């Protein structure tokens, strides 16, 4: 006689305990033309994101990483399998609003996600939708603008801001919902290097200081260095999953999926091929500099 090993809780939470996001055998395909088999954009994704984690999802164009991101706040619904947000099934329409409140999303193009023509009104958009009282909205807006360092731009018009500033406003707009988790869908793809830097610094701070769970979809390897965990996607599947050190120490595997290693790792590899005894897992610029200095010190004259 068969007995179920695990009794599922009524609230529906599966996977790892205390996971904010869970995908179980998630499959997705866009509608295909008649007679053709629909191509699978996501093909059996299983993953969990723990509370307070900073997870970066890497993949070349068309790997399905953005499609995956859109599943985490019910913008897209799974064709097969299921996605749980704080134990809530995204397919349940009654929960959609609660899910979107728990998981905010920042998109690639800052221009296309700013609704209002004044910065603080835009930041207020989400709490207004949630029906917060106006003093509470004021507090949330001031706080969110402070976190992204845009307090003095509250009364400005968004179209006069730089790309990086616009994206910071967009982040503030999501922060004002006070979400538990924020999914960033290639937030720096349209920014110049300075704007990129400021946005990435804010993302790190959100995770480090405010305890927000962060999922960062990106194809810039350098941005992924600061993450706790990297997930590499290719053809709609998860092909690598581990810490940045583990993943970036396998440059050949990464290259097979169309990805580079960060500049620091490429430099260290080059040095190693030339006979220097340097480690390959010094990822940040500072670590890399230290590693090279100590290798130079050890090297016989």
């Amino acid at each position: 006689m068969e007995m179920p090993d695990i009794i599922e809780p009524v609230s529906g939470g599966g996977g790892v305990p205390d996971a904010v996001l869970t995908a179980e055998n998630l499959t997705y395909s866009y509608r295909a033309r008649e007679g053709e088999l629909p191509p699978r954009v996501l093909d059996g994704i299983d993953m969990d994101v723990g509370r307070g984690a900073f997870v970066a999802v890497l993949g070349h164009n068309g790997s399905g990483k953005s499609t995956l991101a859109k599943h985490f706040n019910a913008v897209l619904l799974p064709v097969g399998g299921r996605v749980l947000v704080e134990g809530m099934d995204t397919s349940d329409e009654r929960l959609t609003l609660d899910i979107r409140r728990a998981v905010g999303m920042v998109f690639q193009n800052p221009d296309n996600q700013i609704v209002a023509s004044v910065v603080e009104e835009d930041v207020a958009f989400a709490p207004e939708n949630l029906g917060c009282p106006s003093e509470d909205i004021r507090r949330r807006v001031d706080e969110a603008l402070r976190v992204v360092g845009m307090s003095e731009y509250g009364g400005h018009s968004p179209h006069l801001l730089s790309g990086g500033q616009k994206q910071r406003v967009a982040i503030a707009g999501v922060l004002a919902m006070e979400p538990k988790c924020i999914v960033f869908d290639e937030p720096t793809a349209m920014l110049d290097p300075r704007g990129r830097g400021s946005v990435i610094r804010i993302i790190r701070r959100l995770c480090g200081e405010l305890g927000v769970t962060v999922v960062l979809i990106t194809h810039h390897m350098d941005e992924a260095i600061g993450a706790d965990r990297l997930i590499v996607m290719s053809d709609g599947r998860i092909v690598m999953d581990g810490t940045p050190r583990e993943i970036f120490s396998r440059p050949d595997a990464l290259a097979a999926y169309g990805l580079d290693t960060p500049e620091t790792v490429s430099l260290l590899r080059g040095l190693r091929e030339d006979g220097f005894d340097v480690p390959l897992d010094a990822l940040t610029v500072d670590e890399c500099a230290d590693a090279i200095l100590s290798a130079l010190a050890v090297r016989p004259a």
Partner: protein
Amino acid sequence: MLRDVTIGQYFPGGTPIHRLDPRTKLVWTVIFITALFMARGALSYALMLCVLAGCVFASRVSARALMGSIKPMLIIICITAILNVFFTRGEVIARLWVISVTREGLISAAYMASRLVMLISGTFLLTYTTSPIALTDGIESLLGPLKKIRLPVHELAMMMSIALRFIPTLIEETDKIMSAQKARGADFETGGLIKRAKALLPILIPLFISAFRRADELAVAMESRCYHGGEGRTRMKKLRMTSRDCAALALGAALPALIVVTNMLSGA
């Protein structure tokens, strides 16, 4: 060249006019326009001009900005004035072949032109001193009663504020597309009307495609920020009528009455 477009532009400020409730300003604008069409005779026009000048002065909107708003309408104003000059019957003061210029025609042209100029300046003063958001909030609140007859008031207000938000973005984009097409040898400046209109096609098509893409992305972004229509939505800045607004509305109510009086005085 497209950057000169001032429609829907807002000049932030803290003047008494800026601080009025948008509903007051909307009602005032409607009253002003009504009074403008009621006005007959020099005295009434002088009164309207004084009111307008007073508002402009109080709002500290620069004369240049106001001129900028009239510039695109200049052709319409001129055509209206010219038609008035030629097609008003009365005492003929000059004659050229079949066209005759009458004294009444000149007077009515002058009135018509100044009426249009004041009409445009007055409405632009509203947008110059009221943020688009306050403006749409005001419209939504004023039209609120129409929700009862199932008019989608909130949706209309939202559409308006998004349209205003995207005007500068789309203008920037048009500039970019024009530069790109010029770089490939497109010619927008020469040729007749039809040729120029045809030359605009390679601008409009990419612009439309990109506008649709933007609309799609914006809709997703709005939904992921929990937008679900006007139901249960609150506002950060609630509209509040103050004693200042009441005073302004009382003055507004007095304006048509004054115009009736000045009409009678100058009509006599």
